[in-house]
């Protein structure tokens, strides 16, 4: 006798098969694969239904009719299985009408024969259900089934061999379904029955359901996300409802019987039922959530939370400015969170690739820019392209989706994506999310690119600066060497000039001294002028030598106690004839009382005095009227003050600042005396200041100038330090 459970398992199987069959058909009504699958499912349903009726009805007529229909249904099942094996997973190889008719002919014959005794001779009702006695073509029918089954399996095997890796996954579902259903059926209905356990026989039909379900998934998984959602939700609700039903049924019927024996519902019993209902109501949600989690895990292993993905991406976009880090992080986030095999970012700059994460490689080389340029349309999904160049490029590089990255102003590059790890095609939800990511990414890449450009610019700038610095350093070294050579030359030249100057000066002075006989007053004057000139020349040579020493760091002050008044007087004497020749009146006012000896470098101080008076004579000639140079040496408070005042050309205001710098000559001074060296005042300042003195300078252009120095008197003569090296004549 068939058990109640057995009946239920049949009914549940039928219900499940119908649901799946309709889902697959509605999923794509026009697709031949879906249509055939639907027919296959329907024939199975019919077969099971007939078996159910045949096994459970006590009416012999009904049982016989059901058995005959079951015979026809099984014939149809194998026909449709054969057809299905040809069109799975896709209907690329269209069914040929002739072939179809050829295969359908034996089936039609079996269906027609089902009403005759040749197929089903007699049906009797036994304790285990209907017992069918096969007719004379029953053996033929088994041969038909075996042939069609073998043909179907070989079709599947052949198609599997030809299938792409993506399609193979679909086959794996199908094969898994066959194995699971076959295993369960064989174990429960054959092996266990042999061992005397027949109570698990009810699992046979539901195992068929597993096969159908897996096959359905294999068909639709490339098309709709939604059917899976629907199936998943259905499974969830069926699970929840059946669980609740079992609990409720068990508790209500068993427990309340124990607590409240008897048939009449008492108030307490009613109250108990209400409480139970409330409890069940509250347990509904947690249970539902539990089953949802379970089904999600089964159906949506690649499901992601788009909001979470966006949040993550936004966080990376906001925190990274380095192009390489940004790209790496983003591709990592997209691949791991959206479960995509690979992602690549290519940043383009005009006619060259600016940056590339280099994750996607072609069979021979990286994606070239020419190839990329053909993908510049905002989005290209390989699966949606019928064919052509774009599809070829994408296929050869394993790119499933290509998104152009662009902002309002600029085209920046591409986001290229490989296939999804699940093997599914990109759903519209995926594409929508990717578009949002691409838009945000474009802006971030624009910023990162600018940043990288600035960095590159900085790097080249640094290289250029380093190069320029090196050049300047070399130039500086060259200049230093040149400067050294110049100093050496000046030093050498001034030494060489001194030797002939010594004899010139010496002989003229000797002639003047009368060493070569008495001179007439007429001869005396030109000779004196020759001597003065020679002295001035010696001064200039000294200037040159001192400047070269300053530059070489060899300038020094050799201080001795000296008689400043005596030096001034001797220089005045030496320059008198020169002043006369320039028609300048040179006067000197000496100190009121004898000045103490000053601790100064005699030679250099003498030069300072000579330079200042010589300058005044040169530049002291006014444009009209007589020139006048007043030299004075006075004690003022605790200072010795030396001044040379002239009424000459003066110093222009704008040139006063530079007057004491080396080689500098005021414009009007150059005009008045083109042959000046520009060294005199530079030396004066240095010598005076190096000895603790102070320069006096005041001038009005066109009115005249005052030059001089001031030394503090505190540097008293230290007795016994040294003697004057050269006696001084007044």
């Amino acid at each position, binding site marked *: 006798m068939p058990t109640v459970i057995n009946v239920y398992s049949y009914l549940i199987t039928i219900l499940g098969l119908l649901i799946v069959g309709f889902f697959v058909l509605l999923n794509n009504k026009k697709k031949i694969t879906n249509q055939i699958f639907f027919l296959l499912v329907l024939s199975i349903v019919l077969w099971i239904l007939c078996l159910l009726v045949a096994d459970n009805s006590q009416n012999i007529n009904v049982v016989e009719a059901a058995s005959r229909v079951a015979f026809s249904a099984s014939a149809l099942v194998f026909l449709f299985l054969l057809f299905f094996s040809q069109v799975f997973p896709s209907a690329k190889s269209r069914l040929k009408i002739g072939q179809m008719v050829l295969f359908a002919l034996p089936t039609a014959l079996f269906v027609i024969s089902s009403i005759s005794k040749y197929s089903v001779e007699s049906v009797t009702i036994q304790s285990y259900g209907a017992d069918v006695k096969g007719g004379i073509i029953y053996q033929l029918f088994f041969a038909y089934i075996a042939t069609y089954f073998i043909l179907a399996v070989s079709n599947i095997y052949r198609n599997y061999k030809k299938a792409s890796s993506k399609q193979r996954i679909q086959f794996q579902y199908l094969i898994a379904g066959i194995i699971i259903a076959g295993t369960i059926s064989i174990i429960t209905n054959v092996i266990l029955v042999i061992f005397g356990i027949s109570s698990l026989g009810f699992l046979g039909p539901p195992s068929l359901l597993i096969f159908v379900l897996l096959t359905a998934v294999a068909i639709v998984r490339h098309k709709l996300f939604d059917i899976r959602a629907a199936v998943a939700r259905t499974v969830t609700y069926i699970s929840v409802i059946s669980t609740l039903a079992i609990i409720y049924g068990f508790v209500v019927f068993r427990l309340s019987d124990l607590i409240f024996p008897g048939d009449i519902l008492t108030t307490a019993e009613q109250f108990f039922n209400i409480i139970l209902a409330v409890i069940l109501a509250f347990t509904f949600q947690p249970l539902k959530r539990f089953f949802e989690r379970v089904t999600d895990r089964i159906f949506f292993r690649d499901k992601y939370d788009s909001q979470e993905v966006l949040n993550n991406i936004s966080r990376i976009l906001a925190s990274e400015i380095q192009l390489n880090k940004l790209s790496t992080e983003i591709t990592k986030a997209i691949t791991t969170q959206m479960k995509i095999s690979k992602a690549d970012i290519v940043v383009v700059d005009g006619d060259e690739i600016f940056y590339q994460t280099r994750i996607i490689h072609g069979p021979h080389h990286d994606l070239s820019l020419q190839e990329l340029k053909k993908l510049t349309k905002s989005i290209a999904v390989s699966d949606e392209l019928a064919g052509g160049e774009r599809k070829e490029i994408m296929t050869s590089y394993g790119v499933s989706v290509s998104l152009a990255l662009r902002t309002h102003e600029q085209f920046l590059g591409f986001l290229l994506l490989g296939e999804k790890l699940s093997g599914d095609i990109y759903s519209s939800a995926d594409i929508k999310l990717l578009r949002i990511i691409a838009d945000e990414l474009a802006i971030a890449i624009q910023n990162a690119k600018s940043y990288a450009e600035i960095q590159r610019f900085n790097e080249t700038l640094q290289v250029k600066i380093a190069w320029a610095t090196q050049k300047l350093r070399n130039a500086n070294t060259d200049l230093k060497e040149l400067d050294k050579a110049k100093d050496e030359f000046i030093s050498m030249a001034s030494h060489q000039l001194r030797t002939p100057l010594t004899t010139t000066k*010496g002989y003229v002075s000797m002639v003047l001294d009368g060493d070569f006989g008495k001179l007439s007053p007429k001869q005396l004057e030109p000779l004196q002028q020759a001597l003065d000139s020679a002295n001035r020349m010696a001064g200039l040579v000294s200037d040159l030598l001192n400047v070269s020493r300053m530059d070489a760091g060899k300038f020094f002050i050799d201080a001795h106690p000296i008689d400043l008044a005596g030096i001034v007087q001797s220089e005045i004497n030496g320059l008198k004839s020169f002043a006369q020749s320039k028609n300048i009146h040179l006067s000197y006012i000496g100190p009121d009382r004898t000045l103490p000896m000053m601790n100064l470098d005699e030679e250099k101080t003498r030069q300072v005095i000579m330079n200042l008076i010589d300058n005044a004579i040169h530049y002291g000639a006014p444009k009209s009227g007589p020139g006048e140079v007043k030299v004075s040496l006075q004690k003022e408070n605790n200072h010795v003050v030396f001044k040379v005042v002239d009424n000459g050309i003066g110093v222009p205001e704008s040139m006063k600042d530079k007057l004491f710098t080396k080689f500098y000559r005021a414009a009007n001074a150059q005009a008045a005396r083109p042959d000046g060296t520009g060294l005199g005042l530079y030396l004066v300042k240095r010598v005076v200041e190096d000895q603790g003195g102070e320069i006096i300078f005041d001038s009005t252009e066109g009115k005249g100038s005052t030059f001089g120095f001031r030394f503090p008197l505190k540097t008293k003569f230290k007795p016994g330090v040294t003697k004057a*090296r050269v*006696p001084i004549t007044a």
Partner: protein
Amino acid sequence: MNDENQESDARQPKTVDIVLAEDDPFISRMYLVKLQGAGLNVVLASNGRAAVELISAHKPKLVLLDINMPELNGFEAYEVLKRNQYDWSKTEVIFLSNSSKKEDIERAKKLGRDYIVKSDSTPKQVLELIWSKLKK
């Protein structure tokens, strides 16, 4: 203080022996004229080695020793003589130089000797310095 010396020039006896070591013929000739004119007995050396020989041979009262000379410079000649046990205490020395180099000035000072920059002094001034030394 120098006027007296100048006036006594002509009266000096010819017993004074001076070695003038100077490589430039024009300068040595000039000083020779001036010193001989003043009645001094002068011997000329045109390099450092000759100066060493003449000084050790004549043991002069005073030496005019140019610093920049061939063979041996003035200081080297001085040192060579010192090493040859020459008694410098009885001979006055005036170093002659072309420039006022710090090292030269300091070296002369160290030896306690006078130092003249030739281009800064006239022969007359040199002679006056010689007289002031010989009078001691």
